[in-house]
């Protein structure tokens, strides 16, 4: 899909040009006030950009040069807001049917599957004010999807929930990622959510697109600026290879393996993990006399100043065409070890966050 919007607000200009995949979750990531929610509202037709253009799978929803602007109710999209937005005068079932009827899905195609996918079957007769925050968001997502949209827009759907509720709802969103074959735009300012859910990342800063690309490549860029300042790091897509006798699990990915504490996932299942740049240190050769388990041979690809003073951010290419890794080291260490592009090193990973 292709989206271009420009809006001049007093003191703030939104000017974005996005080309996004037609499938998978794209995270619109950025600090609050960066304009990411406005981008979403433009796509929904709730905000009127001047000189806007939006097409999805070749269908044009907005092209101001040709005077095309579909109002929101004529755009086949699903929209889920940050706060619970269920209609309080309707039951859960009434809320789900509200959209189904109007979107020509009165027959309820996919109704049962959706109830199971989002675990809301038992909630049908209830009133929205008798639901927990997490339940309400699941119903809102189901309501949006039952209109059989061509585009799903999620505006920080987890931001109003506490940590526990988030953990409750994330597995459902992951399940959606596997099931849906429409593009999903996910606005978020939480690096954890992005790392866990997104396939594609568009970084929005000051009303502009600072970076856009596949999640893993984009996260490994050195020029992302302050958005990920404290949180620079990469995401690896791994497969659980085995649970070993001493309680560790072996994860494999193209170009290497990682040992992590044991967890519930069965061998063969996919597992995303996140490696923070500050958890990676560098050594010039592999020595056995260390307590760090995960040592990955790599080549220095690039070096840049980190946001933290006195630190450098090193981009590493793992062996055998594996993924990129980031390491944050002190400037002093960089000089002492003469870290420069092309140098072969060993990346020692102190900890791995399982997502």
């Amino acid at each position, binding site marked *: 899909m292709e989206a271009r919007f420009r809006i001049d607000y007093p003191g703030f200009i939104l000017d974005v040009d996005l080309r996004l995949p037609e499938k998978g979750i794209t995270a619109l990531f950025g600090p609050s006030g960066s304009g990411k929610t406005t981008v979403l509202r433009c796509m*929904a037709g709730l905000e009127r950009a001047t000189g806007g253009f939006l097409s999805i799978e070749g269908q044009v929803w907005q092209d101001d040069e040709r005077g095309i602007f579909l109002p929101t*109710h004529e755009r086949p999209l699903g929209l889920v807001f940050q706060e619970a937005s269920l209609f309080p005068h309707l039951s859960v079932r009434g809320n789900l049917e509200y959209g189904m009827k109007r979107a020509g899905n009165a027959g309820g195609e996919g109704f049962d599957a959706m109830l199971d996918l989002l675990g809301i079957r038992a909630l049908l007769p209830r009133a929205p004010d008798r639901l927990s925050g997490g339940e309400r968001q699941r119903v809102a997502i189901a309501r*949006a999807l039952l209109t059989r949209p061509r585009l799903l827009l999620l505006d920080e759907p987890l931001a109003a929930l506490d940590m526990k509720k988030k953990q409750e709802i994330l597995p459902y969103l992951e399940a959606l990622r596997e099931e849906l074959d429409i593009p999903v735009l996910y606005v978020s300012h939480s690096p954890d959510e992005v790392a866990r859910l997104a396939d594609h990342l568009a970084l929005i800063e000051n009303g502009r697109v600072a970076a856009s690309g596949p999640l893993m490549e984009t996260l490994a860029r050195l020029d992302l600026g302050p958005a990920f300042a404290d949180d620079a790091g990469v995401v690896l897509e791994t497969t659980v290879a085995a649970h070993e006798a001493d309680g560790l699990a072996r994860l494999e990915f193209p170009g290497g393996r990682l040992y992590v504490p044991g967890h519930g996932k069965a061998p063969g299942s996919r597992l995303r993990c996140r490696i923070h740049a500050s958890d990676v240190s560098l050594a010039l050769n592999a020595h056995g006399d260390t307590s760090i388990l995960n040592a990955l041979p790599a080549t220095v690809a690039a070096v840049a100043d980190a946001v933290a003073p006195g630190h450098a951010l090193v981009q590493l290419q793992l062996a055998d065409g594996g993924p990129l890794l980031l390491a944050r080291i002190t400037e002093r260490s960089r000089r002492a070890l003469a870290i420069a592009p092309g140098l072969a090193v060993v990346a020692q990973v102190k900890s791995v966050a399982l997502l």
Partner: protein
Amino acid sequence: MDNSSLAAIWLTCKLATLVTVLLLLIGAPIAWWLANTHSRLKGAVGAVVSLPLVLPPTVLGFYLLLVFGPHGFIGKAMDAMELQRLPFTFAGLVVASILYSLPFVVQPIQNAFEAIGKRPLEVAASLRATPWDAFFSVAVPLARPGFATAAILGFAHTVGEFGVVLMMGGNIPGKTQVLSVKIYDYVENGDYAQAHWLAGGMVLFSFIVLLLLYSRRQRSSWSR
């Protein structure tokens, strides 16, 4: 209580019911527009709607008489269309009461629409509801407490008016003689016993209406 009192009560109820129904139909779109518009006219329209709150009823009645009378532009137009002119008719009472009670109906509905905010309507649009559909399927049901308050206030205020009806309707028994005017009539003629019946009844009626209104408010604030 004599028959002319009963006739006045009946006429008053008929007038108030009709006016309330018409006011809800007229007031809802005005309230909707006031709640949602960014037009520069918003302030002016809001002020005009609220004028009856501050104007002496006699001022309103006076201008209504002029406009609808034989020399007023609406009066002339109605003559030209061979319609009966409105002063001193029941229809005239209805028109005058609608204008007089308009703010009591528009404001609660407008407040209710404003309290709903834009979000539920944006959600409705994202679920393919056209603006009309969203108005009837979302905005009106969510604003129901506002409509109820508006209906109660509009009805009670119409029952309680005096100056405007006297000027526009006069004092024709069975036709334009409503309760408040009837009470005035009795007092003028020194018939305090009859006046007591009606006046006391009005006090009771007004108390019950306000009791209903305030206990409703309390209930809805508890359920939040």
